[in-house]
């Protein structure tokens, strides 16, 4: 069979093609698929990879944002080691990270209940998902209003004779962080319910029937049949939540407490914002950003390893 090549039908009288032999060979070597992905790849390099590289470069500089950066070496990273605000923020991120199992298991648990098509399950599915439709900024402002000293929640508590429970939820050093975490979980779990519900619906019903015939209990069915079947979704959601526990907190914390009282709810993405836009230390902010990305990557790797091991054990 004679291969059809571009320009084959345009052979000149002298026996040569308009394209050079080298160009033709190059085209032959590059698979057609590359040309298809090239536009997307270009955009990815331009808007993802290049800023990432630039961010790393800036982390080694002192840059106020409006004059050329000055090379500092690793000074920014050394400063991070001795910056108590960053340490406090990382500690709070660590505490929030410890609650990620709740972020994952709560929606999974609720999804398994809804999956049994309990009475009013459609309403609950919508009710659970509704907070996920609301912007985090709106959620923050809403709860900031609700939780004021004279706000509806304290008023309700006083009205119920539980006035001793009323407190300055977002200004009290003891309650501010737990309340912020609770609000973030409330705002995010609906998405998890929806994702897990879809995953549960995709599990082959015959597996449930087989488990029932084998005499498996509801818990055993979930543990040995359902969980392995939806493990990839579980892994995906866990990874997303781990990342969110580092990079998705800013809109909530900024609108609820701005990191206060004192530094009681300071988190790493808020600290980056402060360094970049309040102190105009964009080089330092970039260094903190690099640390955050590395930490998030490490945690994602750990999360994947843990969930994979769990899945293998289940299998």
């Amino acid at each position: 069979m004679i291969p059809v090549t571009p320009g084959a039908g345009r052979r000149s009288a002298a026996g040569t093609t308009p394209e050079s032999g080298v160009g033709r060979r190059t085209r032959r070597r590059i698979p057609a698929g590359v040309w298809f992905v090239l536009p997307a790849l270009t955009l990815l390099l331009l808007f993802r990879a290049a800023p990432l590289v630039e961010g790393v470069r800036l982390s080694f500089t002192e840059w106020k944002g409006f004059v050329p950066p000055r090379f500092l070496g690793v000074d920014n990273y050394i400063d991070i080691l001795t910056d108590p605000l960053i340490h406090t923020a990382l500690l709070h991120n660590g505490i929030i990270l410890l609650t990620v199992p709740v972020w994952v298991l709560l929606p999974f648990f609720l999804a398994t209940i809804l999956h049994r098509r309990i009475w009013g399950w459609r309403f609950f599915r919508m009710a659970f998902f509704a907070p996920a439709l609301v912007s985090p900024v709106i959620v923050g402002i809403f709860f900031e209003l609700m939780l004021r000293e004279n706000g509806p929640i304290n008023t309700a508590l006083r009205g119920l004779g539980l006035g001793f429970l009323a407190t300055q939820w977002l200004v009290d050093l003891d309650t501010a962080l737990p309340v912020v975490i609770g609000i973030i979980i409330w705002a995010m779990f609906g998405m998890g319910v929806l994702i897990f519900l879809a995953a549960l619906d995709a599990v082959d019903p015959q597996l449930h029937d087989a488990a029932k015939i084998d005499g498996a209990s509801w818990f055993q069915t979930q543990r040995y049949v359902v969980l392995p079947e939806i493990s990839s979704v579980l892994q995906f959601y866990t990874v997303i939540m781990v990342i969110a526990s580092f990079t998705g907190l800013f809109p909530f914390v900024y609108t609820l407490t701005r990191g206060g009282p004192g530094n009681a709810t300071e988190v790493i993405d808020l600290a980056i914002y402060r360094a970049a836009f309040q102190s105009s230390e964009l080089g330092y902010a970039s260094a903190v950003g690099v640390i955050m990305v590395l930490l998030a990557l490490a945690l994602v790797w750990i999360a994947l390893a843990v969930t994979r091991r769990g899945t293998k054990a289940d299998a």
Partner: protein
Amino acid sequence: MQSAAIRPSGARTRRPLVLLASVATAGALVLSSCTTPDADTGGEVAGELTVWDWQYDAPGVGDALKQVDEAFLALHEDVELTHIQQGFEQYDQVVATSMSSGDVADVIMLQPGEVGVLKYAEALTDLTDLVSAETRDQLVGWDQVSEGLDASAPAYGIPLGTQTYVLYFNKQLFEEAGLDPEAPPASVEELFDAAETLKGAGITPFGGGDAEGILGVLWFNILWPAVATDADAKDLGSGELAWTDDKVVEIFETYERLHADGNFPAGVATTPLFGESPGQFTRGEVAMFLGLASTDMSYAQFNEALGEENVGVIQGLGLESGDAANYIPVGPAVAWSIPVSTENAAAALAYAEHLTSAESQKTLFELGGFLPNNVATELGDDAPAQPRQMLADWESHDTAVLAQSYWAVEVLLEVGKQLQLLATGQTTVADAAAGVQAVQERQG
């Protein structure tokens, strides 16, 4: 006619208003022939001009700015002016990133002092030799736009308006409590006595909100001159005076005492200062409110709600009572700067000078409640009593900039945080002072 506001920030001597106004006016006349071609004389400026601020669409001030713009365009018909309001919360980010790309406006409004003009000095035009002698002489507050907060050093902006924290009081509530509204508290101790009397009459003494963690900064600034000098404030800002010093501790203790025993409404810690808390005063729920001299949270808003005759002003606690008080803190409201990247510096300078002229400042005062910093500005006979009193106070006493003018932004935020914790009983004075000192040391 009421004469202008004259408060040379940092001045240590009393300067009679009329004398300085006369000197400035005479100087302006003599030097008028020496003004730059860009001065507001309808000179040869043309081309496109972009202006950024955070107030152009605000009621009052925005209306005044629009009127000032129209007057400028009437003088400079060949200029095509685009005036844009950027969001206040994002203003610094917008300015910094735009400066970075060289795509910033030709004239930009900035905060005076270290948190604004001086932070961006490297990217701003040195205006020292460019502004007309008339502008230089007529405006006060040059130290707040000059390198090292020294008025004789290079200036990177033109100061506009006057701003400070002022304690307003409700004369009607004072009377109801048996206090003389014409003899308000003149010292910190008298303030506490008045608070006790008001509480005895069932009236909440002070209004405010601290959800943003900034209320303490306002109070610190008005309490500071009662125990320390402007030089101390400068030392505190530079780190030569520690935040654990007795003077700072005394202010922290006063602030802690201020928040004791129901002096503020319940929920003050979770109420936003801006937007919501002035309502406590305008609704007559509290007797005193620490607001601003100009624009928002000022006499303009309070007079409208309570009536001009019911709103009093307290400044310079301790000045008249023999306390250690030694000056009234006051400074420019904003500054106008010209980025080095501007391609139309002549028009930019002409516009900035036009904005700060006596006539423009009168418009800004009348429509926006912006107290002037131009000695040639005449307020008019129908000006409300409060700005008249403030101007008179500033003329008859020494003035200097707010203590916070010397602080880095990180220190300012930490002071707010620590005083919020102190007000809610979650830290001690010693720990609060040490907390700020730690941040100060980190800033160098």
